[in-house]
């Protein structure tokens, strides 16, 4: 987990784990919450097993459906965990989704109030590199030495 790049989210959902699991793994259920209204979602493939296809399409007018997600399940533990990535598409072809690929891990656990729902989204390397560079120069710039060096260089270049 890289806190600068990866997203984590956790939520206690007031519904039994089996209900939340079914909302994720039943195509007609997933279609109802996967994309924000007024867009419509069509679930083309939801093969919830390791290596299975995960393909959704999106429509703004309910007529023409555009590509939305073309991904592949990596791990599926019944009622406990779903892992999928768009770094490999639904036909197992290595993919380069824009702007970077990701792997999402969703875990489901029982909780006294319902379901302890957690997710971790890991982003691919280009984002990591960009962020690394940014951290590098912000640190350097923030330090007194960095500012002094910059000042000296500016003065010298005049």
């Amino acid at each position, binding site marked *: 987990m890289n806190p600068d790049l990866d997203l984590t*989210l956790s939520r206690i959902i007031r519904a039994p784990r089996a209900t939340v699991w079914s909302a994720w793994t039943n195509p007609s259920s997933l279609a109802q919450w996967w994309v924000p209204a007024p867009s419509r979602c069509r679930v083309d493939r939801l093969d919830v097993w390791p290596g299975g296809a995960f393909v959704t399409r999106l429509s703004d007018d309910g007529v023409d459906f555009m590509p939305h997600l073309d991904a592949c399940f990596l791990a599926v533990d019944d009622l406990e965990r779903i892992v999928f990535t768009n770094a490999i598409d639904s036909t197992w072809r290595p993919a380069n989704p824009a*702007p970077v690929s990701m792997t999402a891990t969703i875990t489901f656990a029982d909780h006294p109030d319902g379901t302890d729902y957690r997710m971790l989204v890991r982003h691919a390397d280009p984002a990591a590199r960009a962020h690394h560079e940014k951290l590098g120069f912000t640190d350097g710039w923030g330090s007194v030495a960095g500012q002094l060096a910059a000042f000296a260089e500016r003065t010298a*270049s005049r």
Partner: protein
Amino acid sequence: MAQYSAELDGVFVALADPTRRAVVRHLGRGPKSVGDLAREFPMALPSFMKHVRTLETHGLIRTTKTGRVRTCVLNRERFGILDDWLAEQRRIWEERTDRLEQFVTDQEDSTP
């Protein structure tokens, strides 16, 4: 949104190259002339200029010419696009989880 993701793509592409990342690091310490920068890299000036142009095209640096000297300056604000993108991803997933929660709790309410 399409414009924004094209810009973001450009920033990632520009930073995918080790030479260009090294240029960014150099400029993080302050503005430098193209000549001074080029001396740090074992390549011909035309090849080096390609990297400078890529960084400039994608908005990561700005260059200005005074007389015969072209000076490169890091465009720090441009790097904020990465934070914006991460914030956007977080928002998408949080709203998606809101909808999931709504969907399953509605289901629970409607079952006797």
